[in-house]
């Protein structure tokens, strides 16, 4: 039986909440009590109201963070009532957070060239990854896609952190015109080959990335999204199907980061 029983409860205080444009925002919070260490790619469950509606917590990837969990940031897109409530929180507001949960993005042994393919708020975990796991032998490339240049959040910050950033926009306003998967194929066709591809973003994008990686024989880890009631393996609501078996695994506990060969995205 685990001893640090309540380590997963984080009452947080909002320290910043900045709009990023197009309904996106960057929420930064500080836990009040001794937190648990966070790994890049993990997520937390945020209670958006202390009343009974909205009922369930909202899962959010930890974006930038202090490794000991003493400061966690989120890159959030306003899509419904829960994210709307989060978008209007002011510094000083309290939020009830539990976590972190799930597997993170782990760099496979010996891997040096790490490509990250992100769509929309899918860049979130890669901020944490590239800012917290720095090693001289690691070479990060981020392929980021968005509708338009204004939604390529944090491109400059990634570049400042020494990440090689390749952009793709659907309207051609920045980088490659088209989907980020075209940029990915183009890079591979140039003869580049990473040791691992990490991907996070909309499911259709991740599905395409996983296929490209499989064809090219590259290990691909994808961070899945799923409707979650608990976030820690109790409800069995968030499952995804295993590839080639009539079996379901939880996204919240077995994932959210999976080897793309093992599940049906």
């Amino acid at each position, binding site marked *: 039986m685990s001893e640090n029983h309540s380590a*997963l409860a984080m009452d947080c205080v909002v320290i910043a909440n900045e709009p990023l444009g197009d309904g996106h925002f960057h929420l930064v919070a500080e836990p009040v009590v001794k937190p648990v260490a966070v790994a890049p790619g993990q997520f937390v469950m945020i209670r958006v109201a202390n009343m009974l509606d*909205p*009922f369930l917590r909202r899962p959010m990837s930890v974006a930038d963070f202090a490794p000991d969990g003493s400061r966690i940031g989120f890159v959030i897109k306003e899509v419904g009532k829960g994210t709307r409530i989060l978008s209007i929180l002011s510094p000083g507001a309290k939020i009830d957070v539990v976590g972190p949960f799930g597997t993170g993005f782990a760099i496979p042994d010996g891997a040096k060239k790490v490509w990250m393919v992100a769509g929309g708020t899918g860049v979130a975990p890669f901020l944490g990854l590239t800012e917290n796991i720095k090693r001289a032998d690691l070479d990060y490339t981020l392929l980021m896609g968005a509708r338009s240049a204004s939604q390529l959040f944090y491109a400059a910050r990634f570049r400042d952190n020494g990440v090689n950033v390749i952009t793709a926009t659907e309207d051609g306003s920045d980088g490659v015109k088209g989907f980020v998967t075209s940029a990915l194929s183009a890079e591979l066709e140039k003869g580049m080959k990473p040791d691992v591809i990490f991907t996070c973003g909309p499911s259709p994008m991740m599905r395409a990335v996983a296929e490209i990686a499989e064809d090219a024989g590259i290990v691909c880890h994808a961070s899945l999204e799923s409707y979650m009631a608990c976030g820690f393996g*109790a409800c069995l609501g968030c*499952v995804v199907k295993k590839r080639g078996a009539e079996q379901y695994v939880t996204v919240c506990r077995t994932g959210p980061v999976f080897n793309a060969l093992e599940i049906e995205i």
Partner: protein
Amino acid sequence: MSDKNLEVRFGELRLKNPVVTASGTFGYGLTYSKFYDVSTLGGFVTKGLSLKPKAGNKPPRICETAAGMLNAIGLQNIGLDKFISQKIPALKGVDTAIIVNFFGNTVEEYAEISARLSEIPQVSALEMNISCPNVKEGGIAFGSDVRATSKVVSACRKTSKKPLIVKLSPNVTDITEFARACEAEGADGLSVINTLVGMAIDINKRRPVLSNITGGLSGPAIKPVALRMVWQCYKTVKIPIFGIGGISSPEDVIEFMMAGATAVQIGSMNFVDPHIGKRIADTLPSVLDRIGESHISGIIGAAHS
């Protein structure tokens, strides 16, 4: 906070307090030990077990609703063998009642699993699920026909050597007929209620949100219906009742007990607040103080007089 004795006797089962966590919301008991020591609970009920493992329904399986949620997990579970080989050993040292929820596809399966679960010393009691709305066979088919209920309870009564609790479906015209049938067949207690059948539609996709079309509605939204059914069952039978449905506070526990529950089970709120079981068990004494009650058993059925 006062140092009250919260022990209740649920038939032959002694619970150190009336706060138990409900089937399908508490895994096999270990999931929550990262949040608190589950021995602070009066007990917990495992996810529903069947003889063979069950894959469950295709996702999406859950959906938020106003003050509640829908689920159509489809009774995914690891099966009896793995439960015995993996979970039971891991539960060593847990000092609380372990109630195993189970179901079958046929009367024979129900009887068999009840027999096999009776052999496990760590198991405190059995809870028969005859009310799951999310599976084709078994489940609700037994729970919405009084004769089928009598038959399956009678069969398990014969094979079970543990206290046998029957979990009733709220999706019936008159729950008291079922309560009476269970008592007549020798059930030791009732769990009231399982989820209400509900659904949600995704207006963009123009189809039901859940792959299973319908799901079970749970959470505070259903509390008034659950409380009414506990009230009715208490008027009808003498066997003890677990009150279940939307419990989110110590006051809710007291409401259910005053309606006639001997103990309660907390379901969906475990997801929203994973510490809730301990929190409610810890704060119950102070709420009892506030309403001027010194003995927990003094409130059972108190609203009937």
